[in-house]
Protein backbone atom coordinates (compact mmCIF):
# COMPACT_ATOMS: atom_id res chain seq x y z
CA UNK A 1 0.00 0.00 0.00
CA UNK A 2 2.86 2.37 0.93
CA UNK A 3 4.52 1.60 -2.38
CA UNK A 4 1.30 2.52 -4.22
CA UNK A 5 1.08 5.69 -2.13
CA UNK A 6 4.57 6.69 -3.23
CA UNK A 7 3.83 5.83 -6.84
CA UNK A 8 0.68 7.94 -6.72
CA UNK A 9 2.62 10.86 -5.26
CA UNK A 10 5.19 10.67 -8.02
CA UNK A 11 2.39 10.41 -10.59
CA UNK A 12 0.90 13.70 -9.29
CA UNK A 13 4.32 15.35 -9.55
CA UNK A 14 4.82 14.05 -13.08
CA UNK A 15 1.36 15.23 -14.04
CA UNK A 16 2.16 18.69 -12.69
CA UNK A 17 5.26 18.80 -14.91
CA UNK A 18 3.39 17.39 -17.89
CA UNK A 19 0.78 20.15 -17.64
CA UNK A 20 2.55 23.50 -17.39
CA UNK A 21 0.48 26.71 -17.31
CA UNK A 22 -0.57 27.30 -20.94
CA UNK A 23 0.06 30.64 -22.60
CA UNK A 24 -3.26 32.42 -23.14
CA UNK A 25 -4.08 32.98 -26.79
CA UNK A 26 -4.17 36.51 -28.21
CA UNK A 27 -7.97 36.31 -28.24
CA UNK A 28 -8.34 35.40 -24.59
CA UNK A 29 -8.61 38.88 -23.04
CA UNK A 30 -10.70 40.40 -25.87
CA UNK A 31 -13.09 37.42 -25.62
CA UNK A 32 -13.46 37.98 -21.85
CA UNK A 33 -14.40 41.63 -22.49
CA UNK A 34 -16.79 40.62 -25.26
CA UNK A 35 -18.56 38.27 -22.88
CA UNK A 36 -18.66 40.95 -20.18
CA UNK A 37 -20.16 43.42 -22.68
CA UNK A 38 -22.67 40.84 -23.96
CA UNK A 39 -23.84 40.19 -20.37
CA UNK A 40 -23.97 43.92 -19.70
CA UNK A 41 -26.13 44.47 -22.81
CA UNK A 42 -28.43 41.59 -21.88
CA UNK A 43 -28.80 42.94 -18.32
CA UNK A 44 -29.37 46.44 -19.64
CA UNK A 45 -32.09 45.35 -22.12
CA UNK A 46 -33.75 43.32 -19.37
CA UNK A 47 -33.64 46.41 -17.12
CA UNK A 48 -35.21 48.52 -19.89
CA UNK A 49 -37.93 45.95 -20.35
CA UNK A 50 -38.65 45.86 -16.61
CA UNK A 51 -38.65 49.67 -16.48
CA UNK A 52 -41.12 49.79 -19.37
CA UNK A 53 -43.39 47.31 -17.59
CA UNK A 54 -43.22 49.32 -14.35
CA UNK A 55 -44.02 52.54 -16.25
CA UNK A 56 -46.97 50.89 -17.99
CA UNK A 57 -48.28 49.59 -14.65
CA UNK A 58 -47.93 53.04 -13.06
CA UNK A 59 -49.72 54.72 -15.99
CA UNK A 60 -52.55 52.21 -15.79
CA UNK A 61 -52.84 52.78 -12.04
CA UNK A 62 -52.98 56.54 -12.56
CA UNK A 63 -55.65 56.20 -15.26
CA UNK A 64 -57.77 54.03 -13.00
CA UNK A 65 -57.30 56.46 -10.10
CA UNK A 66 -58.14 59.51 -12.23
CA UNK A 67 -61.07 58.33 -14.33
CA UNK A 68 -62.63 55.09 -13.16
CA UNK A 69 -62.69 55.48 -9.35
CA UNK A 70 -64.31 58.98 -9.35
CA UNK A 71 -66.98 57.78 -11.80
CA UNK A 72 -68.10 55.07 -9.39
CA UNK A 73 -67.85 57.41 -6.44
CA UNK A 74 -70.29 59.91 -8.09
CA UNK A 75 -73.14 57.38 -7.90
CA UNK A 76 -74.20 57.51 -4.21
CA UNK A 77 -75.94 54.50 -2.78
CA UNK A 78 -78.32 56.61 -0.58
CA UNK A 79 -80.02 59.74 -1.98
CA UNK A 80 -80.78 61.19 1.47
CA UNK A 81 -79.16 61.23 4.90
CA UNK A 82 -80.27 59.16 7.88
CA UNK A 83 -81.82 62.28 9.51
CA UNK A 84 -83.83 62.98 6.35
CA UNK A 85 -85.18 59.45 6.35
CA UNK A 86 -86.22 59.77 10.03
CA UNK A 87 -87.85 63.13 9.48
CA UNK A 88 -89.79 61.79 6.54
CA UNK A 89 -90.91 58.80 8.55
CA UNK A 90 -92.15 61.14 11.33
CA UNK A 91 -94.23 63.30 8.97
CA UNK A 92 -98.00 63.98 9.77
CA UNK A 93 -99.09 61.97 6.70
CA UNK A 94 -97.27 58.93 7.95
CA UNK A 95 -98.74 59.28 11.50
CA UNK A 96 -102.21 59.55 9.92
CA UNK A 97 -101.78 56.20 8.26
CA UNK A 98 -100.62 54.57 11.48
CA UNK A 99 -103.55 55.83 13.59
CA UNK A 100 -106.15 55.20 10.90
CA UNK A 101 -106.84 58.99 10.45
CA UNK A 102 -108.25 59.56 13.97
CA UNK A 103 -106.19 62.33 15.43
CA UNK A 104 -107.34 64.24 18.45
Amino acid sequence: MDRMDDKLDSLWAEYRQACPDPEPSANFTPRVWQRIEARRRATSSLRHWVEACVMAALTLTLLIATFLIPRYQRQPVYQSTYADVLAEADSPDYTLVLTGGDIR
Partner: protein
Amino acid sequence: MESAERAVAVLIEFELIERARSGDDNAFNQVLQAYRKRILGTIARLIGKPEDVEDVGQEVFLRLYYSLDQLRTPEVFEPWLYRLTVNAAYDYLRRQRRRHESRMSDLSEQQVMMADASAGGKQSKEDARRTRIREQVQSLLDKVSTEDRVLLMLKEVEGLSLKELEKIYKVNENALKVRLFRARQRVLKAYESEA
Protein backbone atom coordinates in the same frame (compact mmCIF):
# COMPACT_ATOMS: atom_id res chain seq x y z
CA MET B 1 7.05 22.37 -2.58
CA GLU B 2 7.35 24.68 -5.54
CA SER B 3 3.69 24.60 -6.51
CA ALA B 4 2.59 25.43 -2.94
CA GLU B 5 4.79 28.54 -2.96
CA ARG B 6 3.37 29.43 -6.35
CA ALA B 7 -0.16 29.16 -5.03
CA VAL B 8 0.30 31.55 -2.12
CA ALA B 9 2.18 34.25 -4.03
CA VAL B 10 -0.14 37.23 -4.44
CA LEU B 11 0.37 38.58 -7.94
CA ILE B 12 -1.05 42.07 -7.50
CA GLU B 13 -1.47 44.88 -4.99
CA PHE B 14 -4.59 44.91 -2.84
CA GLU B 15 -5.19 48.49 -3.95
CA LEU B 16 -5.66 47.27 -7.54
CA ILE B 17 -8.25 44.72 -6.40
CA GLU B 18 -9.99 47.48 -4.43
CA ARG B 19 -10.14 49.65 -7.55
CA ALA B 20 -11.43 46.77 -9.67
CA ARG B 21 -14.03 46.08 -6.98
CA SER B 22 -15.27 49.63 -7.15
CA GLY B 23 -15.90 49.29 -10.91
CA ASP B 24 -12.63 50.45 -12.49
CA ASP B 25 -12.44 48.45 -15.76
CA ASN B 26 -8.81 49.35 -16.28
CA ALA B 27 -7.92 47.87 -12.88
CA PHE B 28 -9.95 44.77 -13.67
CA ASN B 29 -8.04 44.38 -16.91
CA GLN B 30 -4.77 44.43 -14.97
CA VAL B 31 -6.10 41.77 -12.58
CA LEU B 32 -7.10 39.70 -15.61
CA GLN B 33 -3.66 40.05 -17.18
CA ALA B 34 -1.94 39.10 -13.93
CA TYR B 35 -3.99 36.00 -13.14
CA ARG B 36 -5.05 34.59 -16.51
CA LYS B 37 -2.03 32.30 -16.99
CA ARG B 38 -2.23 30.86 -13.48
CA ILE B 39 -5.97 30.32 -13.73
CA LEU B 40 -5.68 28.71 -17.16
CA GLY B 41 -3.01 26.38 -15.78
CA THR B 42 -5.22 25.34 -12.88
CA ILE B 43 -8.18 24.78 -15.20
CA ALA B 44 -6.05 22.78 -17.65
CA ARG B 45 -4.97 20.42 -14.88
CA LEU B 46 -8.46 20.20 -13.40
CA ILE B 47 -10.40 19.44 -16.57
CA GLY B 48 -7.70 17.82 -18.70
CA LYS B 49 -9.13 19.09 -21.99
CA PRO B 50 -6.82 21.71 -23.55
CA GLU B 51 -9.38 22.63 -26.21
CA ASP B 52 -11.87 23.85 -23.58
CA VAL B 53 -9.47 25.55 -21.14
CA GLU B 54 -9.85 29.07 -22.54
CA ASP B 55 -13.63 28.87 -22.63
CA VAL B 56 -13.77 27.85 -18.94
CA GLY B 57 -11.15 30.51 -18.13
CA GLN B 58 -13.26 33.21 -19.78
CA GLU B 59 -16.25 32.04 -17.76
CA VAL B 60 -14.17 32.38 -14.55
CA PHE B 61 -13.23 35.99 -15.32
CA LEU B 62 -16.77 36.81 -16.40
CA ARG B 63 -18.05 35.50 -13.04
CA LEU B 64 -15.27 37.39 -11.28
CA TYR B 65 -16.26 40.66 -12.96
CA TYR B 66 -19.89 40.35 -11.93
CA SER B 67 -19.24 39.12 -8.38
CA LEU B 68 -16.28 41.27 -7.40
CA ASP B 69 -18.53 43.72 -5.55
CA GLN B 70 -19.45 40.89 -3.14
CA LEU B 71 -15.81 40.41 -2.10
CA ARG B 72 -15.53 41.40 1.57
CA THR B 73 -11.86 42.43 1.59
CA PRO B 74 -9.06 42.32 -1.01
CA GLU B 75 -7.11 40.00 1.34
CA VAL B 76 -9.40 37.10 0.49
CA PHE B 77 -9.24 37.74 -3.25
CA GLU B 78 -7.16 34.68 -4.16
CA PRO B 79 -9.27 32.08 -2.34
CA TRP B 80 -12.28 33.83 -3.89
CA LEU B 81 -10.81 33.52 -7.38
CA TYR B 82 -9.90 29.88 -6.74
CA ARG B 83 -13.45 29.19 -5.60
CA LEU B 84 -14.81 30.70 -8.82
CA THR B 85 -12.31 28.60 -10.78
CA VAL B 86 -13.26 25.43 -8.93
CA ASN B 87 -16.98 26.11 -9.45
CA ALA B 88 -16.54 26.77 -13.17
CA ALA B 89 -14.46 23.56 -13.47
CA TYR B 90 -17.16 21.63 -11.56
CA ASP B 91 -19.84 22.93 -13.90
CA TYR B 92 -17.77 21.99 -16.92
CA LEU B 93 -16.91 18.50 -15.62
CA ARG B 94 -20.54 17.77 -14.72
CA ARG B 95 -21.64 18.85 -18.19
CA GLN B 96 -18.93 16.69 -19.73
CA ARG B 97 -19.85 13.72 -17.58
CA ARG B 98 -23.49 13.97 -18.65
CA ARG B 99 -22.43 14.30 -22.29
CA HIS B 100 -20.03 11.40 -21.93
CA GLU B 101 -22.74 9.23 -20.41
CA SER B 102 -24.98 9.91 -23.37
CA ARG B 103 -22.20 9.26 -25.91
CA MET B 104 -19.96 6.64 -24.36
CA SER B 105 -17.90 6.10 -27.46
CA ASP B 106 -16.70 9.66 -27.99
CA LEU B 107 -13.05 10.55 -27.85
CA SER B 108 -12.02 14.00 -26.71
CA GLU B 109 -10.63 16.30 -29.36
CA GLN B 110 -7.35 16.15 -27.49
CA GLN B 111 -7.25 12.37 -27.68
CA VAL B 112 -8.08 12.47 -31.38
CA MET B 113 -5.36 15.06 -31.97
CA MET B 114 -2.87 13.04 -29.93
CA ALA B 115 -3.74 9.87 -31.81
CA ASP B 116 -3.36 11.66 -35.14
CA ALA B 117 -0.06 13.16 -34.11
CA SER B 118 1.40 9.92 -32.82
CA ALA B 119 0.16 8.09 -35.90
CA GLY B 120 1.97 10.61 -38.05
CA GLY B 121 5.10 10.25 -35.93
CA LYS B 122 5.04 13.99 -35.17
CA GLN B 123 5.38 13.68 -31.38
CA SER B 124 8.76 13.70 -29.75
CA LYS B 125 9.58 11.09 -27.13
CA GLU B 126 9.13 13.63 -24.33
CA ASP B 127 5.77 14.77 -25.71
CA ALA B 128 4.65 11.17 -25.91
CA ARG B 129 5.66 10.61 -22.27
CA ARG B 130 3.75 13.70 -21.15
CA THR B 131 0.71 12.66 -23.13
CA ARG B 132 0.83 9.21 -21.56
CA ILE B 133 1.01 10.72 -18.05
CA ARG B 134 -1.85 13.14 -18.75
CA GLU B 135 -3.99 10.34 -20.09
CA GLN B 136 -3.13 8.06 -17.19
CA VAL B 137 -4.06 10.68 -14.60
CA GLN B 138 -7.21 11.71 -16.45
CA SER B 139 -8.38 8.12 -16.81
CA LEU B 140 -7.66 7.58 -13.10
CA LEU B 141 -9.62 10.68 -12.15
CA ASP B 142 -12.50 9.71 -14.42
CA LYS B 143 -13.06 6.78 -12.07
CA VAL B 144 -13.81 8.97 -9.04
CA SER B 145 -16.41 11.67 -8.42
CA THR B 146 -16.00 15.23 -9.65
CA GLU B 147 -15.70 16.38 -6.03
CA ASP B 148 -12.84 13.95 -5.27
CA ARG B 149 -11.14 14.85 -8.52
CA VAL B 150 -11.15 18.59 -7.89
CA LEU B 151 -10.17 18.31 -4.23
CA LEU B 152 -7.22 16.02 -4.99
CA MET B 153 -6.07 18.17 -7.88
CA LEU B 154 -6.04 21.29 -5.72
CA LYS B 155 -4.16 19.55 -2.91
CA GLU B 156 -1.78 17.21 -4.72
CA VAL B 157 -1.15 18.96 -8.02
CA GLU B 158 -1.84 22.64 -7.38
CA GLY B 159 -0.14 22.28 -4.00
CA LEU B 160 -2.69 24.30 -2.01
CA SER B 161 -2.30 24.08 1.74
CA LEU B 162 -5.07 22.94 4.07
CA LYS B 163 -5.49 26.56 5.20
CA GLU B 164 -6.06 27.67 1.61
CA LEU B 165 -8.45 24.80 0.98
CA GLU B 166 -10.36 25.76 4.12
CA LYS B 167 -10.95 29.22 2.66
CA ILE B 168 -12.05 27.80 -0.68
CA TYR B 169 -14.33 25.09 0.66
CA LYS B 170 -15.43 26.98 3.79
CA VAL B 171 -15.11 23.88 5.99
CA ASN B 172 -12.78 23.25 8.91
CA GLU B 173 -9.42 21.53 8.68
CA ASN B 174 -10.53 18.24 10.23
CA ALA B 175 -13.44 17.84 7.83
CA LEU B 176 -11.08 18.57 4.95
CA LYS B 177 -8.56 16.01 6.17
CA VAL B 178 -11.28 13.37 6.27
CA ARG B 179 -12.50 14.28 2.78
CA LEU B 180 -8.95 14.25 1.44
CA PHE B 181 -8.16 10.91 3.04
CA ARG B 182 -11.28 9.29 1.60
CA ALA B 183 -10.73 10.81 -1.84
CA ARG B 184 -7.14 9.59 -1.85
CA GLN B 185 -8.21 6.09 -0.80
CA ARG B 186 -10.68 5.94 -3.66
CA VAL B 187 -8.05 7.07 -6.17
CA LEU B 188 -5.54 4.60 -4.74
CA LYS B 189 -8.06 1.81 -5.16
CA ALA B 190 -8.63 2.83 -8.78
CA TYR B 191 -4.87 3.08 -9.31
CA GLU B 192 -4.29 -0.39 -7.88
CA SER B 193 -6.96 -1.90 -10.09
CA GLU B 194 -5.37 -0.19 -13.11
CA ALA B 195 -1.83 -1.32 -12.24
